[in-house]
């Protein structure tokens, strides 16, 4: 990690060495990795990046770990698709879907977890742990397996089966915590104090968060080294939203792209939209809520990066928008039926929020718009409910023809 300087408190600016720490000793503010951008700008060019591997590790100069040590299960450099069908339905000529649901464990979480696992090995941790609403734990279990580490994953007991089995298969110790999200959350902050484990989203958080910047870099590179006019990003803790913006800013500061004017929109589900709520009332306080949403992966009531995500909305003239609960499945189906991409509930939130942004006139027909699809539909099958109504037939021609005709009439 030749270009890393230190960890710095986002609130009071205190400086810390590169260690597994997540909060400032003085003000308890969050810590962030600080880089030597002059040295990065000497080391990278469009050509050097393009010559790198077809994974997120082509951007290793912007990450707080050594490329040679990377625990890489081939995460990143996922497709950016010109969504002509969906675009024409919504009235957008230049709509792109960043399909991050095709990562190794089927969500964008592989990006931050790949960085964190690498860093955890460097710090000589033996146990990789997390507390998760589903996607994160699958990724932690897979990366831990690849790194030869023990893994412990904690999750609220009422999670979707697809997420539980999708994590269990990699062989972690699974811990189902009874109670609501708050309980699991508090319990794990205490555990992190008492065990020498690399908790990816607690004591490893500063390193973890950096991995998501690659979703900004990739989109800019895939658009021909240009930032889009609009990004629509799903939000839970707000971290992803702020880190995509940080990625775009870094590319702009170093001169890999120019003229950064992207509006960073944030999409949350109606039943858990504390950041959007603050945006709408014009407050810079995020009032915590009790999550009650179909989009379990976005069910964070007290978002850690909420205030920073609000700052990004202000700074970029973005809009915070919520998807009504009963439109989440519509969003999933719309994307599937127009573009052949099956996303999970978080993606449904993004698509139906995108629709609202167009209706509100926030996004214009000829503007380059990127909608981030960050998780895979196969993991949240339960959310779809009973929506399949097949034509019932015996295996004979007459019955089938009659049944088909009846089905086509209705």
């Amino acid at each position: 990690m030749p270009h890393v300087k230190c960890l710095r408190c986002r609130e009071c600016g205190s400086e810390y060495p590169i260690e597994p720490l997540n909060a400032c000793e003085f003000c308890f503010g969050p810590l962030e990795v600080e880089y030597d951008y002059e040295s990065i700008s000497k080391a990278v060019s469009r050509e050097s990046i393009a010559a790198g591997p077809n994974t997120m590790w082509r951007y290793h100069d912007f990450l707080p770990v050594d490329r040679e040590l990377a625990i890489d299960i081939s995460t990143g450099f996922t497709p950016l698709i010109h969504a002509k069908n969906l675009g024409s339905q919504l009235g957008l000529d230049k709509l792109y879907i960043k399909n991050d649901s095709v990562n190794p464990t089927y969500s964008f979480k592989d990006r931050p977890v790949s960085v964190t696992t690498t860093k955890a090995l460097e710090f000589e941790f033996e146990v990789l742990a997390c507390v998760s609403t589903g996607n994160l734990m699958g990724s932690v279990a897979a990366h831990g397996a690849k790194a030869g580490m023990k893994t412990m994953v904690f999750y609220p007991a009422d999670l979707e089966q697809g997420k539980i089995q999708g994590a269990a298969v990699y062989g972690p110790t699974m811990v189902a915590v009874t109670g609501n999200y708050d309980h699991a959350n508090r319990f794990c902050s205490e555990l992190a104090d008492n065990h020498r484990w690399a908790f990816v989203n607690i004591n490893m958080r500063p390193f973890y968060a950096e991995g998501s910047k690659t979703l900004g870099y990739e989109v800019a590179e895939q658009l021909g080294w240009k930032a889009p006019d609009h990004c629509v990003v799903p939000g839970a803790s707000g971290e992803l939203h702020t880190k995509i913006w940080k990625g775009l800013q870094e590319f702009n500061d170093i001169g890999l792209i120019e003229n950064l004017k992207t509006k960073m929109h944030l999409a949350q589900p109606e039943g858990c939209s504390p950041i959007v709520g603050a945006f709408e009332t014009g407050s810079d306080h995020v009032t915590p809520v009790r999550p009650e949403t179909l989009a379990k992966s976005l069910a964070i009531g007290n978002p850690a990066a909420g205030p920073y995500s609000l700052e990004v909305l202000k700074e970029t003239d973005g809009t915070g928008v919520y998807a009504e609960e009963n439109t989440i499945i519509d969003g999933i189906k719309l994307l599937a039926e127009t573009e052949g991409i099956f996303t999970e509930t978080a993606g449904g939130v993004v698509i139906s929020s995108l629709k609202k942004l167009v209706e509100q006139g926030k996004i214009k027909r000829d503007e380059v718009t990127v909608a981030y699809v960050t998780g895979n539909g196969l993991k949240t099958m339960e959310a779809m409910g009973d929506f399949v109504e097949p034509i019932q037939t015996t295996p004979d021609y007459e019955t089938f023809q009659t049944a088909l005709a009846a089905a086509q009439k209705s």
Partner: protein
Amino acid sequence: MSTKRVRFTFPSELIKEPVIYKLGIDFEIVTNIRRADVRDSMGWVVLELEGDDEIIKDGLDWVASTGVRVDPVGGDIIEG
């Protein structure tokens, strides 16, 4: 004895209540405020508590019972 880092979020109707003072007096917990932002509509305070484990637990249960939200510092850590 142990220490605990917490964040209290006050709804507007409780902002004028001396919750932190009472936590110190009634529970014998040492309170050390590190960061705060209080407006007329709501407020939050990030602080460190020092005291007996059981007493801190009782104290925080009492704070929560007043209607003030108690969270670990740094917000929820659960993510997708």
